[in-house]
């Protein structure tokens, strides 16, 4: 990061760091921005509390389950999928066969 950006990070306050918290949680923040953020967190318990609850929010979202589950796949629909799959395999094998046919024989 350039010198001007580094100076900007050094003067960051809570509000500026607020925008970077998800990137920090996800490990997507550059090292120098990370270091500045952690320096700020060392001295700012409200930001620590906010970060903790944001991190927990992301963790809870990872456990999200819809309130309804899909019904078991009907036989008719499974047959429809299988037919599409088998057609795709036939097309793939047909394509492979015609590529072999086009190879020059010696």
């Amino acid at each position: 990061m350039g010198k001007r950006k580094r100076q900007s990070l050094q003067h960051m306050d809570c509000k500026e760091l607020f925008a970077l918290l998800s990137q920090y949680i996800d490990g997507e923040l550059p090292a120098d921005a990370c270091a500045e953020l952690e320096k700020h967190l060392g001295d700012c318990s409200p930001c620590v509390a906010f970060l903790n609850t944001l991190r927990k929010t992301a963790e809870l979202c990872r456990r999200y389950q819809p309130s309804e589950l899909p019904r078991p796949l009907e036989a008719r629909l499974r047959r429809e999928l299988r037919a599409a799959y088998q057609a795709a395999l036939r097309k793939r094998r047909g394509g492979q066969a015609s590529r072999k046919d086009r190879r020059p024989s010696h």
Partner: protein
Amino acid sequence: MEPEIIQLVKDLQAGAPGAFERFVDLYRPRIFSFSYGMCGHREDAEDVAQETLLQAFRKLHTLRAPEALNTWLFRIARNACLLKHRKSKFAPERELSLEQFLPGRDADGAPDIPDWSRLPEQVLLNEELGEQLRRAIANLPPKYRMALLLRDVQGLSTAEAAAVIGISQEAVKTQLHRARLAVRAELTEYLKLRVAAAPA
């Protein structure tokens, strides 16, 4: 991507016995979960899952590398959701700003940030909170909901989510952050009384 998934895709493309069933059993619930989060309606989500899998099998030849499965499959699912889209009974499209989620201040002027992350696990894992979480996600405007569903719920990387949605990685990061802030705000409203009541 896990080696087992890469192998499953190779098996599927090669027509290996059992690959079709394994793929459907693994991905139908995942696509349903994603489309239910977007559509909010079981029948629509089932239709989207069926249409996605149908298109996926028809276009199997377009999946060049097994590692690209997430991007490829969820792009099909996203397009199927958009086609299925009804006038949402949830929040309409609107912008979320960072400013609206900045913490307020208490009577003494200190930031008001109850740290509910420290509540016991049985509180954080109970069904009532699960329902609050579902409601908070459903209340997100669609573009923020999609970023959160792809990144946090389905576990796609930023690059994969950006490719699915067709936006930049920076835009995904911005939308995800605002989505998380909005969900956090709703959970905080629900949990702050428990924080106040918890022993010090």
